[in-house]
């Protein structure tokens, strides 16, 4: 009844919006870095050797890079003021994409403005509800969020364990035999990283290629740490193993 409803509304007490955090939580007081983060870094006033930033090629302090950035600042200003679709595409974006494609020896390339968002948007673009994705257990957080957003069926395999992966693929194939019509429309993907952020080792790409052709799955390769690091010229893990990059899906 109406009166009961009013009473219920009066009585309801929600939880506080955020639970209280203790004052000496370690992440609460950040280390303040003053000055540029190069191989030496000034943390909280003390000068330390920097073993923490992802500055693999040391290009943070390179004069050529800084001069090019200054020139572009003078020409374009700081922000782009718009998404790519609505006058936010600059000629430098297009040039960068062409150069990336040529360097990585692929047909085309696309760039995103935020590293985290790249793989988290790419996975849901291809893998929808009902598709099957085989993921390494030690995949980084961005991949996990991308998979959560795509709502596909996720099958985890033990870190760098090709035997376990093959087992899972065989199980999947057996299920496909039972329902061939559905199997013809579900897409299958494997998501791996070139250099794992959580574990620090490399994925065994040649075996993955063999599995790919045997079981007909497509490979997503995330090279945010191995780009510029592995391989003779820095082209990443495909050059490191000597594999033609067109075998990789993305």
């Amino acid at each position, binding site marked *: 009844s109406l009166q009961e409803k009013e009473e219920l509304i009066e009585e309801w007490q929600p939880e506080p919006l955020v639970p209280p955090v203790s004052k000496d939580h370690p992440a*609460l007081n950040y280390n303040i870095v003053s000055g540029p983060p190069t191989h030496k870094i000034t943390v909280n006033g003390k000068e330390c050797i920097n073993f923490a930033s992802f500055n693999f090629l040391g290009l943070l302090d390179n004069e050529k890079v800084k001069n090019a950035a200054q020139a572009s600042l003078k020409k374009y200003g700081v922000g782009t003021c718009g998404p790519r679709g609505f006058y936010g595409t600059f000629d430098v974006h297009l040039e960068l994409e062409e150069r990336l494609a040529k360097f990585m020896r692929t047909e085309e390339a696309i760039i995103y403005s935020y590293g985290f968002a790249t793989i988290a948007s790419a996975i849901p673009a291809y893998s929808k509800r009902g598709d099957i994705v085989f993921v390494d257990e030690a995949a980084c957080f961005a991949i996990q969020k991308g998979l959560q957003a795509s709502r596909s069926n996720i099958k985890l395999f033990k870190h760098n364990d090709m035997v376990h992966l093959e087992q899972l693929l065989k199980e999947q194939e057996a299920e496909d035999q039972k329902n061939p019509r559905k199997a013809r429309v579900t897409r299958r993907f494997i998501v791996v990283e070139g250099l794992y952020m959580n574990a620090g080792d490399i994925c065994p790409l040649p075996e993955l290629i063999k599995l790919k052709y045997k079981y007909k799955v497509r490979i997503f390769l995330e090279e945010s740490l191995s780009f510029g690091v592995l391989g003779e010229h820095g082209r990443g893990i495909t050059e490191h193993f000597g594999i033609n990059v067109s075998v990789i899906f993305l």
Partner: protein
Amino acid sequence: IHHIVQNGGLYKRPFNEAFEETPMLVAVLTYVGYGVLTLFGYLRDFLRQWKIEKCQNATEREEQKDFVPLYQDFENFYNRNLYMRIRDSWNRPICSVPGAKVDVIERVSHDYNWTFTYTGRVIKDVINMGSYNYLGFAQNNGACQEAAAEVLSQYGAGVCSTRQEMGNLDKHEELEKLVARFLGVESAMTYGMGFATNSMNIPALVGKGCLILSDELNHASLVLGARLSGATIRIFKHNNMQSLEKLLKDAIVHGQPRTRRPWKKILILVEGIYSMEGSIVRLPEVIALKKKYKSYLYLDEAHSIGALGPTGRGVVEYFGLNPEDVDVMMGTFTKSFGAAGGYIGGKKELIDYLRTHSHSAVYATSLSPPVVQQIITSMKCIMGEDGSTLGKACVQQLAENTRYFRRRLKEMGFIIYGNEDSPVVPLMLYMPAKIGAFGREMLKRNIGVVVVGFPATPIIESRARFCLSAAHTKEILDTALKEISEVGDLLQLKYSRHRLVPLLDRPFDETTYEETED
């Protein structure tokens, strides 16, 4: 349908919002247009399948021919047949700073938009009505740019580390204190990307067992954040307070769907200005409802920060309300400040919790130093702390531009959606053919506009969206209006049945009334 609401003294100024209904004839013709296009689409697909016509979209590599196909035929139907025809209105490359006038690179297509070739020429001085440059801070000279250049040479271009590790520069601390002061809240926290701010912080605030009430037309980042959080989502009609109240009452009285246990928290997600409609949220009523039903409010001010309010502090100041009433104030630096990134402001406990538990603080890199400096300089300029009145002048110029532009467009007879004071002006086109025609005709006349169709808008309500800027002078606006009127006559876009009697050209003040004749 005009709403002029002065609801029990909650609103201190008239709230004029109008969404004129689609004329019946236009709706019918639009559906007919889409029907014809669909028929042709099926015909072309048939020809392509039987190899009579060459297939030009991406095809599978030879050895992968027996893999499961990536795109189901029907999913891509819209893309192949409708979007490809008018694709040249989007992704137009530019090669200068996106200010009031911009240089667009010319491109032609010899095979009906499947591929583009660049002719090498540049169309100079195109009037830019598409970039989100509300206060005109997209500049390549001036105080902002010099400060950013200095910081670039001093700190380098990037940070290469997450916020919790070595990524917290002293510049970030300075920026956060400044943002908190600007908004009038206790503290604030900044992130590298506006979209990611929403999608990574809503999951940190709510989880399973909580309820999210979100507006019909919320942005994709809010929808993604709500879905990733795992809470139950209920949608209320756009800006409709009765619908919201009904949902709130039902939620508290009935509890969770199956177990009938009470909800842990209720979070209302709204935006300051909705970018496709141009409407402003009815904030006084939302806050009254929120207080009555003890729920929490998350306000996304991506477009409204810097653009509304007498000193540019956003939609809270526009309505004259207390910023402490809004629990979580979120916004982006991309639009009015000419930089990149997002922020969240609120009480100190909230921000402390986000510093420890937000996904972005732990896993994603922080803002890069020159961008931080650009935000600091532009924010100080808006607040007036750098000693000049440039900030205030920009905000006032934007308000005048908005009123003038909207009034003139209404006088000409176009259907314009949205609130009188919002700098986002959607002009209705409706028919699919006019989308492409409008974009191309305006570019021929040296004006760059943004046209949007399905799936960003409902299928028959496609529109052209103008984004006004403080950098547009009256002459630029007059030129643009003249060209828009010409193109409107050419394409027969003047659908409106409410004709305004043109006012004398005197400055707008609160006591003038407009007469409408139907």
